[in-house]
């Protein structure tokens, strides 16, 4: 456990001192800020049923597709290609501590970026006090639900990135692998759901399984303040599985 904290501290320090972190953060916030602005603007022109924050978080997949691969692709693949993974392995550190620290480092950064977007509704509130009066900008139930969704689904997304990074020594391959896997997990689940809905009635358990994989559906529930344990179980168990596999991979492919 001591090793985990040493490694995590190192991981965070490396994030803090490397310029790409700041570039990524600025780009992310610019993009998300623009999206938020666009949503607010759209709401001015046409009344919408959903709260701006709900609409905003529906676009979570846009940053996930590019941020997660960028954040995680170099974590293990990069260390392996420079050889620092080897030096790490010669210390009495456990493999699981290495993987967990990489995961925790990337996850903390991912969550920090998302928490920074909390500034948007506050800024909007400050600039447009009218809108603030209706309490639509800072509706706590939807904000808490949405952030809870981001926190749990983020675990899975970052774990996918870490796993992709652990199987290869090329950062490019790791990035592409995590991008495609994220695409399949996020969009594929939804597509399966669409197919299931349009086709004939499915047998009970298959229908339940497909429902289980609907990430957008999870977001819908969470942002309405419905907190279900099933998505929790889905995200945490898959995360644990992926991190376990990554540990095995670096043990075998040191």
């Amino acid at each position: 456990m001591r090793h985990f904290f040493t490694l995590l501290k190192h991981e965070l320090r490396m994030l803090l001192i490397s310029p790409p972190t700041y570039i990524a953060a600025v780009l992310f916030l610019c993009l998300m800020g623009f999206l938020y602005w666009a949503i607010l603007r759209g709401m001015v022109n046409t009344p919408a049923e959903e709260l701006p924050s709900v609409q905003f978080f529906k676009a979570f997949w846009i940053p996930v597709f590019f941020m997660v691969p960028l954040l995680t692709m170099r974590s293990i693949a990069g260390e392996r290609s420079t050889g620092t993974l080897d030096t790490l392995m010669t210390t009495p550190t456990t493999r699981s501590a290495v993987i967990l620290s990489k995961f925790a480092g990337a996850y903390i950064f991912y969550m920090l970026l998302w928490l920074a977007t909390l500034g948007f509704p506050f800024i909007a509130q400050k600039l447009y006090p009218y809108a603030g009066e209706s309490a639509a900008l800072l509706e706590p139930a939807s904000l808490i639900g949405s952030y809870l969704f981001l926190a749990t689904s983020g675990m899975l997304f970052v774990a996918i990135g870490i796993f992709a990074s652990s199987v290869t020594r090329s950062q490019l391959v790791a990035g592409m692998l995590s991008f495609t896997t994220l695409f399949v997990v996020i969009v594929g689940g939804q597509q399966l759901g669409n197919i299931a809905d349009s086709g004939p009635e499915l047998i009970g358990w298959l229908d339940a399984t497909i429902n289980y994989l609907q990430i957008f559906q999870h977001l819908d529930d969470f942002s309405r303040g419905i907190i279900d344990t099933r998505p929790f179980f889905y995200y945490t168990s898959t995360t644990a599985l992926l991190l376990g596999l990554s540990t095995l991979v670096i043990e075998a492919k040191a």
Partner: protein
Amino acid sequence: MEPTPSIRVENLTRQYGALTALHNVSFTVNPGEIVGFLGPNGAGKSTTMRILSGIMSATSGSAWVCGVCVAQNPHEVKRKIGYMPENNPLPDDMRVVEYLRFRARLKKVPSNKLRETVQEAMDICDLSRTARRKIIGTLSKGFRQRVGIADALLGNPEIILMDEPTIGLDPHQIQGIRKLIDNLRGKLTVVLSSHILPEIERSCDRVIIINRGRIVASGTSSELREEFLPGNRFAIEIEGEPAALLEKLKSAKISAKILSEKELSIGRYQISLRAEGDPDTLGPQLIHTLQQAENFKLHALAPSNPSLEEIFLAATKRSWEETIDSKPKVASVTNSSAS
């Protein structure tokens, strides 16, 4: 009771798919010894070191480090070994002292001794004055190597494994590293690999020559000289015909053979000569005989010790020929030279 050897390796074999990188390698290293691993590229030096440091597992065979089996207890072994991998990978954007502190923490140095341990390692490697707060990415290659060695020294290891510590360094830096290794003599067991032969010859007590995954020779450089290039060798410069020199020696009843001759200028030759006889009296005898010659003039005579380079070439060439000769029955060949 004999002390436990620092490293004991028995019948170690490692295969990468169809390629056998190590074939039945066995050797021991005693505490306090400085041993050089010598071999051409792809001979299996790095593989052996990686297996010993516990990052890679062997296909078969066993290795013990300070009496601890590497395969059964890799964690214990990692505490006893300081390993500097080939090419010495370091994170470019950290400062030297930060990096070493981080490594010391990973090597379970207690936090109240952290500063002291890091300072000590930096002092040994002469890093504390100039490079302490420098960013690793901006360091010269020599300093990077020092950082790698300082890292290997952290956490009080009993054995230091260094994979090609002097590769890519200039002569000054090589000398620095050599002094550093000399400083460690007696305190720690050091195993280093290299193909820079004079380097190994000067700093190592014992040499293990490895080729194509087999140990082809092992011993001190004088033992190896005896085994691979026996006889007394002399470098002679004469003015006159080399044939006349041989005749003269024959008449003085010294049996000798010319190994090579080179014409320096017209009528003047440099000859490498192998002569049989008692090494203590042979020199004066030769000088005496050659001085009296009428049809050539002796310019210079010096005993020449074959360098490790020549031994290395002879040893690896022999093993090369052995493997070619025994190709049809390669499966049944056991490594008799492993000792």
